[in-house]
């Protein structure tokens, strides 16, 4: 693939800061990806709309507030409604291990919890793109 991977980095919900998302955005940038950064307090509708307009390969959502079980599946659901089936959806942030199987069942491909080296996320993205 001789085009850069495009990633939407989004913060759904009401988190007060986006330090982690910015670290990830920066790491993906340094890995040669085009990162579309949307900032704090995004609704699932805004995330889906940006996903479509920006034609991204990956949606990476960071969430710290505890609302992950509601907001992350909602994004996957809305993407399905819009017939978007070639975008890899991943999540990260403060997410308890017990919730991860539920989120995966709902269509979030992988969850990266605090302490994950950024290289793991980068490798995962490169290996799991749905589009050539």
């Amino acid at each position, binding site marked *: 693939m*001789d*085009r*850069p991977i*495009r990633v939407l980095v989004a913060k759904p919900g009401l988190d007060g800061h986006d330090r982690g998302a910015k670290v990830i*955005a*920066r790491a*993906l*940038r*340094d*890995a*040669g*990806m*085009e*990162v*579309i*950064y*949307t*900032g704090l*307090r*995004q*609704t699932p*509708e*805004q995330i889906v*709309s*940006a996903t*479509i*307009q*920006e*034609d991204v390969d990956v949606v990476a959502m960071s969430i710290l507030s505890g609302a992950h079980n509601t907001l992350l599946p909602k994004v996957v659901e809305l993407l399905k409604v*819009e*017939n*978007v089936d070639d975008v890899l959806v991943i999540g990260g942030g403060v997410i308890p291990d017990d919730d991860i199987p539920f989120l995966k069942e709902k269509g979030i491909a992988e969850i990266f919890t605090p302490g994950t080296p950024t290289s793991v996320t980068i490798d995962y993205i490169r290996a799991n793109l749905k589009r050539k």
Partner: protein
Amino acid sequence: MDLAERLLQGDKRAVARLISMAENHDPEAVEILKSLFSKTGKAHVIGITGPPGAGKSTLTDKLAKAIRKEGKTVGIIAVDPTSPFTGGSILGDRVRMNDLSTDPGVFIRSMGTRGHLGGLSKATQAAVKILDIYGVDYIFIETVGVGQSEVDIAKNADTTLMVMVPGLGDDIQAIKAGIMEIGDVFAVNKADRDGAKRTAREIDMMLDFNHSDWRPPVQMVIAVDNEGIDELLGHLKDHKKHMEDTGKLQQRRTLNSRLEIIDLVQENLMRMILDKSKKEEMINQLAVDVAVRKTDPYTASESILKEI
């Protein structure tokens, strides 16, 4: 249904995919643009440029909202720099435009410069055409934060809006050649800050030397507070009307088309010369030869040209 048809029917995903294809040099995108080119030229294309942090994105957001109130539609192309080292980028202009994200009458696309200098990316022109065919009434192109000489935006827009802020230098900056020459409309943003009036006055003085029949207006705005936005939009519309009434819009578009044709010739020529892997080897070998002084760069470039 193919992409061209979907684009004509107003499918946002077709718009998005076509822009990606244009960015990635997909020949199919060029074919589609060829077939639909006659449908372009309807939108008012407005370039927004200015130094980093001047408030270009915030201003774009507010102008787009003012246009939406009139029931018109908007396309926004926001360009941010690509790293010359890794090829990666952080495109952060959407942060200031979040409310517009779900508005069905707005389409926002972020683009990395991908190695292109001048404040835009190579595919910006294609993206403008795609949005024009899609059918928006206004297209804003927001450049990367510019310095003094990134004037590409003027080759791509009907109207160029130059966004300035107070405190960036004395009046000699205002009379320098380069970006200060391309503004059709000037906005002094953050007008509540010290020195804003002085900045506006300095720009005004520079414009007094302007001999064309359009005297660029200088509008004080506070973008975050939505102050001065309606007036600014009025100036942008006046400029387009002036250009239409005097026949200058056609002149400018002719000049810009000429530049675009030359650019495309250069681009295609470069691809012909450099893309062939055999020539790539040849160039690498010549580079080594030049570095060890076996040959000189002038002869080396001539021998590549002889190959075509």
